[in-house]
């Protein structure tokens, strides 16, 4: 009794060791070898082997531990007949086969099997199926009604469209060769547990394989995405660098132009005073041409730099509190000389209204509008520059946002209705005569950008032959927490 208990104890310990070993290893070969070794030790069987069933129903021994006096069955291939269909089904369902004496007719072994058994001197067998429970993902096909599954399972063929499916992977077999053996409950349970462990380990191994494949695929995908992103980044960096170079180029050129332009502009103006010597009539004509042309160049250079800033998103509006009256006065002052030359009278009404805007840019807009008005007026005419505060916005009649409204009105030739919008586009001029008057075609589009950056609107109204009115609005409210810088 003592010995029996001791043996039991040993077995239990061995068994725990085996389980631990199995769980620790992920290598299927290791697990199989450990299992057969442990089974042999615990059961004291003469041979323990693992038989792997192949898809074509043949199979072979892939793991074995056998006492030296008995032959090995390793790598021996077995024909289909060894595992008849109905046995296959039974095993797939988990049935254990314990044969105490192979020669006992009650065991019901097939004749050919008995022959084989005699060859190898096997007297008793214990066969436990190793079953894998597979699910649809491992077979990669569409789900099925679970009711169908029970039918499919019993067929034993691995139907590729079952939800879960018991697949007979192989057999864990213990042989007793030296004698017959009555396999006890413990033996059966041990073998079953080992077989289960193998089943699980196989599933794990498979899962791991699938995981690794997934990992690899995912890694490959990510690598490609990464590569593409990198290329895109490079492309964008190149584009940005090119743009930057382009901008810098324009900046430098425009800068370089300004110094000789200053000399040219000033020198011609000095000559034009007449105080540096008398010129013939033709000489004066030539001088006038040179002078006008230089003025156009000056305006163009100024406009180009503005435009370049706008295009590259570098137009920085810095708003501050300023007085509409001051801006109007400045604008008029700077246009006074030009107005006088064209015999135009500038009329203003500098109301003391505060605005929240970038004074330099608003001044630029005002001078531009005044310049246009003067240009297109006939001698002796008037140009008005007026500012008012509107509490109901002329642009948003339903909004209650108060606006400051600037208007420049002239009595000149007017603008055809179909041109009223187009003139705000770049390089648009009303007609050829406009270009003769020295326009660059850039001024109004720049004005529009500036006004829109301030949150306002600019537009023109006109009656051909009866003058035009250019109006722009600026929002009157200073929103709380509004930053004073706004990059466009």
């Amino acid at each position: 009794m003592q010995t029996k208990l001791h043996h039991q104890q040993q077995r239990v310990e061995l068994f725990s060791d085996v389980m631990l070993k199995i769980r620790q290893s992920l290598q299927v070969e290791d697990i199989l070898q450990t299992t057969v070794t442990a089974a042999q030790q615990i059961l004291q069987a003469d041979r323990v082997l693992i038989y792997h069933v192949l898809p074509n129903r043949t199979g072979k021994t892939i793991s074995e531990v056998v006492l030296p006096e008995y032959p090995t069955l390793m790598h021996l291939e077995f024909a289909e007949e060894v595992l008849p269909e109905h046995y296959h089904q039974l095993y797939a369902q988990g049935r254990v086969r314990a044969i105490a004496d192979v020669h006992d007719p009650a065991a019901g072994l097939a004749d050919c099997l008995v022959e084989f058994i005699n060859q190898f001197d096997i007297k008793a067998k214990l066969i436990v199926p190793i079953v894998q429970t597979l699910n649809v993902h491992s077979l990669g096909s569409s789900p099925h009604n679970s009711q169908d599954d029970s039918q499919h399972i019993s067929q034993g063929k691995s139907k590729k469209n079952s939800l879960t499916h018991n697949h007979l992977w192989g057999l864990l077999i213990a042989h007793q060769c030296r004698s017959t053996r009555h396999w006890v409950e413990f033996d059966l349970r041990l073998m079953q547990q080992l077989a289960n462990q193998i089943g699980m380990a196989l599933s794990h191994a498979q899962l791991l394989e699938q995981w690794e494949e997934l990992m690899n695929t995912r890694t490959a995908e990510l690598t490609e995405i990464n590569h593409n992103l990198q290329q895109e980044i490079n492309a964008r960096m190149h584009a940005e660098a090119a743009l930057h170079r382009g901008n810098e180029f324009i900046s430098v050129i425009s800068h370089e132009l300004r110094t000789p332009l200053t000399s040219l502009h000033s020198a011609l103006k000095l000559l034009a005073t007449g105080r540096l010597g008398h010129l013939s009539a033709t000489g004066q004509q030539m001088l006038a041409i040179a002078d006008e042309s230089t003025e156009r160049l000056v305006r163009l250079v100024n406009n180009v730099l503005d435009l370049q800033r706008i295009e590259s998103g570098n137009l920085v509006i810095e708003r501050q509190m300023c007085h509409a009256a001051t801006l109007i006065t400045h604008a008029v002052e700077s246009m006074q000389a030009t107005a006088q030359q064209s015999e135009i009278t500038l009329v203003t009404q500098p109301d003391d209204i505060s605005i929240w805007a970038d004074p330099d840019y608003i001044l630029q807009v005002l001078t531009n509008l005044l310049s246009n008005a003067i240009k297109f007026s006939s001698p002796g005419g008037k140009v008005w520059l007026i500012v008012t505060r509107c509490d109901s916005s002329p642009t948003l009649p339903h909004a209650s946002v108060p606006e400051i409204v600037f208007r420049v009105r002239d009595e000149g030739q007017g603008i055809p209705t179909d041109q009223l919008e187009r003139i705000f586009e770049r390089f648009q001029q009303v007609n050829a005569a406009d270009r003769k008057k020295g326009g660059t075609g850039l001024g109004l589009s720049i004005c529009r950008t500036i006004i829109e950056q301030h949150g306002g609107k600019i537009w023109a109204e006109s009656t051909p032959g009866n003058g035009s009115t250019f109006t722009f609005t600026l929002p009157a409210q200073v929103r709380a927490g509004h930053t004073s810088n706004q990059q466009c």
Partner: protein
Amino acid sequence: MPTKRILIIDDEETIQTVVQFGIKMSAGWDVLTAGSGAQGIQIAQLEKPDVILLDVMMNDMDGIATFKALQAHAKTGQIPVIFLTAKAQTGEKRQFNDLGVSGVITKPFNSLNLPEQIAHILHWVTF
């Protein structure tokens, strides 16, 4: 009131010339010229002009360095300086103002207008 005296520091000779003639012709003021920052500092210390027109972009000693040197000297520290520059944006102007420059005149300009612009910047009552 004695005639105003202007010092123009610019490494472009043509600019020196047109500025000289323009200011003389329109306001009758005296104009001294210098072709470099170093030369300009020397003349300023000697002549003590009423205002200095200083080109920002010069090759050897640029406008900003020249300005700082002028500010540092006791003899020239009080003389108002106006930058001549191609840059006109508000941000850049503010940079110059932060330095302590009295004002900025942008290129291209008409030198005949300079006396008026200078008077405006420095709040001189002349005209």
